[in-house]
């Protein structure tokens, strides 16, 4: 738990030691210390990621690509907000966490993996629906652009889901002294 002089980079987790320690020891008030606020963030994130995925079913137009880009930008921003909301526990290596933090992180990964299996089934169904629509409309542009939005959505979901589960499950934080 002690801060070291050298800022180690954890390549596998994609995070630095200083980021985790600063986040864990951050005492500044934040709405995301409360479970309700974190859950609202998770719901928003889930809706946006799903909206990104269903872009595959929309006809490829300029407006659709603008919407897709805007959605992606918001999802990426929310991804970083979410990581901070759970104090980077979802991304942190064991050596920077205590036993409770490791336990809740591992439990979140287990749930996230199960949810991901369900989500990927939905993605496959979306792709099948997209394929049917393409055959009906003879719109060859659907394949490349639509499939890309589905892939991006799947990648964002896979990257965010452990933090989303953690944000949903963690109770409101206790103060240093209640």
């Amino acid at each position, binding site marked *: 738990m002690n801060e070291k002089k050298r800022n180690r980079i954890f390549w596998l987790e994609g995070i630095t030691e200083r980021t985790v320690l600063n986040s864990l020891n951050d005492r500044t008030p934040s709405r995301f210390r409360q479970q309700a606020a974190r859950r609202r963030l998770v719901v928003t994130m889930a809706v946006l990621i799903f909206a990104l995925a269903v872009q595959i079913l929309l006809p490829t137009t300029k407006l659709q690509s603008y919407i897709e880009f805007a959605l992606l930008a918001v999802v990426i921003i929310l991804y970083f907000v979410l990581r901070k909301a759970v104090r980077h526990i979802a991304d942190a290596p064991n050596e920077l966490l*205590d*036993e409770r*933090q490791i336990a809740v992180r591992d439990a979140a990964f287990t749930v996230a993996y199960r949810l991901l299996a369900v989500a990927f089934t939905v993605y496959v169904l979306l792709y099948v629906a997209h394929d049917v629509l393409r055959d009906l409309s003879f719109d060859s542009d659907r394949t490349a652009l639509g499939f890309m939005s589905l892939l991006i959505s799947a990648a964002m979901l896979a990257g965010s889901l452990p933090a989303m589960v953690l944000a949903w499950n963690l109770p409101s934080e206790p103060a*240093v002294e209640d």
Partner: protein
Amino acid sequence: MSRSKEDPVFNRVEELRLQQGLSRQQLADAVGVHYQTIGYLERGEYSPSLLLALKIAAVLGAEVGEIFSIKPFRKGK
């Protein structure tokens, strides 16, 4: 957060910590965990490992069985 919501572990950590005049942060530092872990533990939202329970007992100067129980503690005990 507790290992089993069906089988809660009751504790007197807050009571004994306050008797010792320790803050959550001080107790957390003494046992090597984050201060929030002490907070969650005191609220009954986390059940500690045996190792952490032993460390807390050592710092608070009591037996583990005096601090943690599977039955609720009587008030004032």
